[in-house]
C-alpha cells in the first residue's frame, strides 16, 4: 500500500500540490467521484466527436440525450422495453428453474455429471449466436423463439455455475451433517443448498447478463422488436441519435440491473463477506 501511494504522488505535478491534493483526498473518500468523472470524460469526448462531426452517422451526445427523452416522453421507449423484457424475463426465469435444478443434480450425482457436464461445457464455450437463426425454423418469429434464444445463452451459464457451487460446498460442513446422522435429504436441503446459495445466486446474475446478450441477439437476428426494432428502424431512417439512445439505454439498463443484483448479493446474501 505504501508503495502505491508513493507512486500516485509521483504521477502528480509538483507545482500545484494544494488543489490537486485536495481533489485527491476528495477522490479517495468518494468512489462515486470517479464514476462521475469518467462518465463526464466520455460524454464530453462524445459531444466533441459528434460536433466535428467525425461522421454523418455519428450524433452528438446532447442530440442522443434529447432523442432518449423524446422516446421516453412519447412512450416508444417504455413500449420497447415492455416488449424486450418479456422474452428476457421469461427466458431467465425458465433458465433459472431448469438450470439450478440440472446444475444441482450434476453436482450431486456423478452419473448426471458424466452425462451432462460436457454438453453444457461445450454449449457455454461455443458461439451460440450462430445457432440463434435456426430457432426460427421451428419456433417461428414470436415470443417463443426469442425466449428460446435467451435460454440458449443463459441456461449453460446457470447450469455450470450451479454445478460448481454444489461441487465447491465446504466438505467439512457435509461431514458435520453426516456425523449428526443427517439424511441425504437433510444434507441437500439444510447444508448443500444453503452453502451453495451465494454461488448459485452469482450464477443467476451471470445468467441474467447472458440473457441480455441473448435477447439482443434475438432482436437483431430473428425479428426486430422492442429495443432491437428501435435500433434497426431508426438506423433505416437515418435517425442516428435515436438509434444511439436505444443502444446506450439497453447497455445502461443491463449494467444497472447487474449492479443491483451484485449489490443485493454482497449486502443481503453474504453478510459474512462484507467485512473483507
Amino acid at each position, binding site marked *: 500500500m505504501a508503495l502505491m501511494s508513493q507512486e500516485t504522488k509521483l504521477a502528480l505535478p509538483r507545482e500545484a500540490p494544494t488543489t490537486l491534493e485536495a481533489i485527491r483526498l476528495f477522490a479517495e473518500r468518494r468512489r462515486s467521484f470517479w464514476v462521475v468523472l469518467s462518465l463526464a470524460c466520455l460524454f464530453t469526448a462524445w459531444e466533441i466527436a459528434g460536433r466535428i462531426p467525425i*461522421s*454523418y*452517422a*455519428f450524433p452528438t451526445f446532447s442530440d442522443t440525450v434529447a432523442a432518449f427523452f423524446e422516446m421516453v416522453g412519447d412512450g416508444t421507449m417504455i413500449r420497447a422495453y415492455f416488449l424486450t423484457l418479456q422474452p428476457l424475463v421469461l427466458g431467465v426465469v425458465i433458465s433459472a428453474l431448469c438450470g439450478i435444478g440440472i446444475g444441482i443434480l450434476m453436482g450431486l450425482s456423478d452419473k448426471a455429471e458424466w452425462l451432462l457436464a460436457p454438453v453444457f461445457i461445450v454449449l457455454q464455450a461455443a458461439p451460440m449466436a450462430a445457432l440463434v437463426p435456426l430457432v*426460427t*425454423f*421451428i*419456433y*417461428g*418469429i*414470436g415470443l417463443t423463439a426469442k425466449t428460446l434464444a435467451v435460454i440458449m445463452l443463459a441456461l449453460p451459464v446457470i447450469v455450470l455455475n450451479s454445478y460448481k457451487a454444489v461441487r465447491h460446498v465446504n466438505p467439512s460442513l457435509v461431514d458435520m451433517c453426516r456425523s449428526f446422522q443427517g439424511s441425504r435429504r437433510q444434507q441437500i436441503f439444510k447444508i448443500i443448498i444453503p452453502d451453495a446459495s451465494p454461488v448459485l445466486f452469482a450464477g443467476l446474475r451471470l445468467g441474467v447478463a447472458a440473457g441480455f446478450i441473448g435477447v439482443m441477439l434475438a432482436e437483431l437476428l430473428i*425479428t*426486430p*422488436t422492442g429495443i432491437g*426494432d428501435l435500433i*434497426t*428502424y431508426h*438506423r*433505416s*431512417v*437515418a*435517425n*442516428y441519435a435515436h438509434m444511439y439512445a436505444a443502444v446506450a439505454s439497453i447497455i445502461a439498463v443491463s449494467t444497472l440491473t447487474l449492479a443491483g443484483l451484485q449489490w443485493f448479493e454482497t449486502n443481503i446474501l453474504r453478510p459474512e463477506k462484507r467485512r473483507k
Partner: protein
Amino acid sequence: MGYLAERIRTAAVISTLSLTVAIPATAIADPMRVAFGDIATVETLGLLIALERAKEQGVEVETVFLKSEDIAAQAVVSGQADIGIGGPYALLQKVKAPIRMFLQLSELQMYPVVNSEFYKDWADLDGQEIAVHSRGSGTEAIMQMMAQKNGIKYSSVAYVPGAEVRTGALLQGNVKATIVDSSGKRVLEAEAPDKFTFLPLGDIAATDEALFANTEYLEKNAKDAEILVDSILTTWREIAADPAVVTKLRDQYKLLPDATPEMVAEIEPYFAGLKDALPLNGGGEAAAKSDFDFYTVSGALTGDPKELKVEDFWDLGILNTVVGRIGTM
C-alpha cells in the same frame, strides 16, 4: 534461455505493432466500395456479373456484404462505403448527408399470400396480423396500399426481414398472411400448392432496389460511376433478352463457386421471373415520381407526393449521360 525469451518477446512486440499498422494500411487503396445489404445469392448474380464487367473496364471494385440494407445505408452515410444497394427513401428524406440514388436496379415484384385455411381474400385480413419485410419497406407499402383500397385495417404488422424467411414461416405455419417475392412464390407453389392463396394486386410500379451514393463521390468519380451504370444496364438488357445467359456468365466469371446444384438450377427460373421487373433504362425521373406516390402511402416518405422534388432523392446526371450514349429501350 533468457536470450531466447527476449527474442520471442521482441518478435511478439514487432508482430503486434505491425498488425496494428496493417489495419488502416489496407484502407489506403481507393477502390469503389460497394455495400450490399445481403449476402451474395442467386438473386444478386445479375449485379455481380455487372460488377465483373465494370472491373474489366478498369474500375476497381471492392464489395462488402452487410447484414441488412440499413447497415449498408449507414455505411454510405458515414463514408465507409461509396455505393450502397437498397431503397432508402425514408433515409434520404431525413439524413443530413447528400446521399442520392442514381440507378434503379429492380422494381418491386411482390405477391401477397395467405394461408387458405384461414383467409380467402383481402376482406378476411381485416383485423388480422400480417408480416412484412421491415418498417417503411416496399412490402409494407404494398400491404398498406391494398388495405386502403379494400377498406380494411390490420390488427398489427410484424416485421420479418427476408422473403425466404417469410416463405419458410408460411410453410411452417408460423405466419398466416404475408408478402413474398417471386422465388418465394415458386417455392410455395411447388411445396404446397393448395395450402396458399395469392391475393390479387393492382398495378404497382415502385423501386425495390437502387444504387445510391454520396453526391460528392459521384462528382469525383463520375467516370467510374458511368462505367458501372453502363455495365449494369447492358447486363440487364442481356438478361431481359435471354435469362439463360446468367448461368453462362456465372461460369464465365466463376461467381458463387460453391453454389449447390439446387442453387444453380434456381438461377434460370429466377431471372426468367424477374425479366419484366428489370428496369432497362435505370429508372430515373419517371421511377422517382411513381415511387413518391407509392412510398408516401407506406409512410416511408412524408409529405405530399406532388411536392417532393426528384433532385432531393435522385442524382440523374450519370444515368442520363449513359442512357444518352446507349439509347433507351
